[in-house]
């Protein structure tokens, strides 16, 4: 069982979520996050004075069994990639246990 964290462009979220849904992954956590990458360090300008600002990105988090992880990562990348700087990251993190609060069940689904 793994946790896949995908930091993607906000506009790509609908495409990513529908691709995940087609893989049978329906439970998704979406958060709005800010940050910067190695090559994307946006500079803001307020009345002529520069400041470092962060890009708005969206983070999708899904928990899935190990045999689905490869498909999930590919689907997310295929559906969010533009090829420009600032496309984001996909992280795969091992999960020890995951519980559903309603059913008290342990497991990915």
């Amino acid at each position: 069982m793994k946790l896949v964290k995908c930091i993607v462009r906000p506009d790509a979220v609908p495409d990513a979520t529908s691709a995940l849904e087609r893989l049978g992954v329906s439970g998704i956590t979406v958060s709005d996050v800010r940050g910067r990458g190695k090559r994307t360090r946006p500079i803001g300008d307020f009345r002529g004075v520069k400041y470092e600002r962060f890009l708005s990105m969206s983070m999708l988090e899904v928990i899935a069994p190990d045999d689905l992880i490869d498909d999930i990562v590919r689907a997310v990348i295929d559906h969010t990639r533009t090829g420009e700087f600032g496309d984001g990251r996909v992280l795969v993190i091992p999960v020890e246990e995951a519980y559903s609060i309603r059913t008290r069940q342990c497991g990915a689904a």
Partner: protein
Amino acid sequence: MKRRAMVLMKVLAAALLTLWFSNVITTPNTAHAQGAIGQPAGDPTGATTGTAADVPVKDAKNPTLTEVMETVGHNRIAINFVWTLLAGFLVMFMQAGFAMVETGFTRAKNAAHTMSMNFMIYPIGMLGYWICGYALQMGGVGAISVLGGTAPLNSEFTLSLFGHTFGLFGQKGFFLSGNTYDVGVFALFLFQMVFMDTAGTIPTGAMAERWKWSAFIVFGFFMSMVVYPLFGNWVWGGGWLATLGKEFGLGHGHVDFAGSSVVHLVGGMAALAGAIVIGPRLGKYSKTGESIAIPGHDIPMALAGTFILAFGWFGFNPGSTLAGGDLRIAVVATNTMLAGTGGAVFAMFYVWWRLGKPDPSMLANGMLAGLVAITAPCAFVNSVSAMIIGVVAGFLVVESVLFFDRVAKIDDPVGAISVHGVNGAWGVLSLGLLADGAYGDGWNGVSGTVKGLFYGDASQFAAQCVGTLTCVVFVFVSFYVFFKVVDALIGNRVSAAVELEGLDIPEMGALAYPDFVLGPGTPMGSGSAIVSSASPAPASLKPVRGDAI
């Protein structure tokens, strides 16, 4: 602490007592005459302020009739000036209403850009209007008696065809200079300028979230210097639509009291042409052509803006008498609010029944639609007709928003085409149907009052149809060609990458909300082709492995 509070209370009580005693003691002394100690008398009721002593005469004991008449005449015109100017100030504030409605109905990532367009159309439009717009529109209007004459505006360019005269544009008042340096001409400029800006700010809503800033500026000048002034001249400046009655016997000519056609239909048609040429926003329509909702980011802002607009409309319509002494303003103002009510209430029930919920954006558009529609007929109809006009507008705005969104597939983020275009047309046509003949004696130089089709004058309805058709064709074609030319020269639309990022940073260099995370702004799971414009669409779910995965 407690002791300090006690001391403070005592001081306060002492001060209040002193104030009260001083009033009790001094009031009887000063109410009617000079106080015993020589203090000038106050006039708390206002009954003795403004008397015969305030009429300037040479010899106070023997005032001449001429002297009194002069004061009366001056006051009559002064009331009209103050009324016209104050109404103009109210209309100017409608710019804030438009800015809030349009920004509220669009996404946070474009908020600084949308707001800036609505902000800058005011000075840009005014500059163009001062240079030549006003002269082209009102330069041949002649003397407007309620403003005491505007006599310097006396030169209209006319064509004579088939024995009839067609006024095309005015020729006096460029830069408000020469002998147009005149109070009446200036008052009229202020009032007409804010109307022109209202028309100018309508297309910014329909073309929001994708309009290149430089192209928008060119538009601002074209609107304020060419298209609006020409159509305005034909209706309000003594041009050929106004003289349809005198020349061709069509009622009183094209009658538009406060601008359903001159302001709103012009803005709406420019918005329609612009929205067609610039195309829908990325992600607005799916590959199969299905309409996808792109919710506005601040509905409370949009509704507050609607209130500001409804308030400003009390300047827009009643102010168009240009005369505070014309007591028809009471009817005009009441009709205006009634039609706004009809639009809002009917749109609420209708959209509730049609779509399941009383959608707040439709409540706002419903009220605006009623207000737009009553703008032309407000002075010529009774209260029942005003309500009917508003109700029909409430129906029209809901259906036309759905039509443009789902059938015509013209992306109009705020509904400007439906609110201002469709209901602007309905407004001028409704005048031709419902004008009740109570007002407008001698309008456009035709004797008798203005009557609509249902009150016995079919030719008035014909004149309204000619005016509406002229406006639709002339403005739409002008702006369609204009936007196509701009497209070829500098481009109307930002790049796809800029549109995805939001226009705030790439176009304006500043975010509206730098302290906040900006979300997707598009609902989940719509399956739209948002990223496909920047990258090749994924071939399948199991693609060939690239450099990594």
